[in-house]
């Protein structure tokens, strides 16, 4: 079943068209990679899906509902969750509280005590349980990234939007994260959209389908292996073959 549908979505900033008439469909439980160079409109696309921006044209349909103009906080209960490229922890709160806030206000909508217990589970799952009582602002950038992932998972989304979440991670950590993502896809049919600028190898192992963005437009879309061998993609973006 189609979970997310973008219909001819356009967003302009002054004279710049950041996202130009993009169509996109994501199925339940699907794993999609969105790749493209810096400035290709990936982050704007995420901001349109999560409600930070309202598109100038086009529609956003999520789970059968038109959410084009819905404010961000009203989209989350429907089952959307995202991480940020530069992690945005609630600095003075502990790691555990950060993750619990996800469980409280996400689709799960738990009460405080339940959410704090749930947070422990996700911290264990991601493997940062030992950091639980630390203030989030004291974490290393990499630890913050793990925490953001735990926070997004605790929201129990139907669709998880990841923004460069695996950048800078050790290969063994990447393996672990991919395994977790595959598990929530399998068990809970969560669609995972992963945005990547570098780290092509992680995307080839994870995504079933890849969308390549270029100058605000969808350049190519299709099976990962095919797309990454497409001569246009190699020309505008990759520079050389990656697989």
């Amino acid at each position, binding site marked *: 079943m189609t979970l997310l549908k973008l219909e001819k979505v356009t967003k302009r900033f002054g004279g710049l068209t950041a996202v130009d008439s993009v169509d996109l469909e994501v199925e339940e439980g699907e794993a999609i990679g969105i790749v493209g160079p810096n400035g290709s409109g990936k982050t704007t696309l995420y901001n349109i899906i*999560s*409600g*930070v921006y309202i598109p100038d044209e086009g529609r956003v349909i999520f789970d059968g509902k038109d959410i084009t103009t819905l*404010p*961000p*906080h*009203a*989209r*989350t*209960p429907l089952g959307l969750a*995202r991480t*940020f490229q530069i992690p*945005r*922890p*609630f*600095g*003075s*709160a502990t790691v555990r*509280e950060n993750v*619990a*806030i*996800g469980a*409280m*206000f*996400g689709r799960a909508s738990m*009460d*405080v*005590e339940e959410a704090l217990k749930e947070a422990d589970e996700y911290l264990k799952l991601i493997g940062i349980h030992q950091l639980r*009582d630390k203030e989030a602002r004291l974490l290393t950038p990499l630890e913050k990234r793990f925490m953001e992932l735990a*926070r997004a998972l605790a*929201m129990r989304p139907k669709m998880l939007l990841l923004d460069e979440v695996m950048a800078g991670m050790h290969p063994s950590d990447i393996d672990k994260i991919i395994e977790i993502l595959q598990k929530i896809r399998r068990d809970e049919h969560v669609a995972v959209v992963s945005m990547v600028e570098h780290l092509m190898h992680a995307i080839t192992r994870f995504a079933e389908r890849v969308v390549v963005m270029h100058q605000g437009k969808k350049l190519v879309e299709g099976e990962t292996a095919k797309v990454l061998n497409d001569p246009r993609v190699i020309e505008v973006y990759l520079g050389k073959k990656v697989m």
Partner: protein
Amino acid sequence: MNLRAYKPLIPMMAVYAILIAIALSVEGMWQPVAYFMFYIALGQAFNIFLGLTGYVDFGYVAFLGLGAYGMGIAIQNFSHLGVIAIPIGIVLAVMMSVLLSLAVGAVALRLRGAYFAIATIGVNEGFRYLVEGVRLWGGTEGMILSGFMRKTFGREMTNFFSTFLADVLVIIVAFSAAVATIAILNRKMGYALLALREDEDAAKVMGINVTKYKIMAFITSAGFAGLIGATAWTLKLTYIFPEDVFNIHYTVEAIVIVMLGGAGTLLGPMIGGLIYGLMKYYLSVTFPGIQLLILAPILIAIVVAFPDGLMGYIKKKTRNSPLSEYLR
């Protein structure tokens, strides 16, 4: 309800008990303690908004002012009903300040940070000129209620109201505001406010309706401000002048108390209010005329030394000790 989460009220009750014991047992200490309690109440009420949301409302004193007028109007119009005019005044005070907070909040709380502060800066002055300009509620001459109260309640009762009941009510208001604070901190609302204070945009994307929670905190804080105006000013002083009750001076004092004690903490406003009240009171006794000249550098030194406020510092120092359950 989880009673363990309310443990930090225990040290607060201990301090209140000591203050009340001093006030009742030491000759001449009732009034100074009442003076400290006014500042504690002011800090505790303002902290619900400033401390929990991180937004600065420069027009805050307007809520105290409207509360003061609410009580004044009730005494003027309902004193034929006897003592029942006081509870009517309390209800009216809360209603008036809450209504104003809804009006101000619905507009100004859509603005961020400094823009909000600037938008609110004129609220108290606006009200002052409104009251004076259209000669509302007595205009510049204000409301002088003492003669009126004596006639209807009797001299004894009026004295009892202004020298005892008003002070007791202020203590109750301060404690109630603290209970409201910890109740908020322990609920989802507390976590929502923590998130929006740290990063409002991220909070929105996390599913937090930031405008809703800001307005809830604003209304709660304004309601307590109205109660303070009604009790600490109207009932105690028995007069109301617009240039006094809409004076920005009290907003600034409230900000100082909250920052001194530790914004967003439960016990901070009590510590801040006590220190501020003590210093202001005794400096004005020992160095009359130049008390503020001495007070200001001391306050600056404290804020520089403890940027998170005194309670913020204490909390950090006791983080992993068993004491931390009692300190919030």
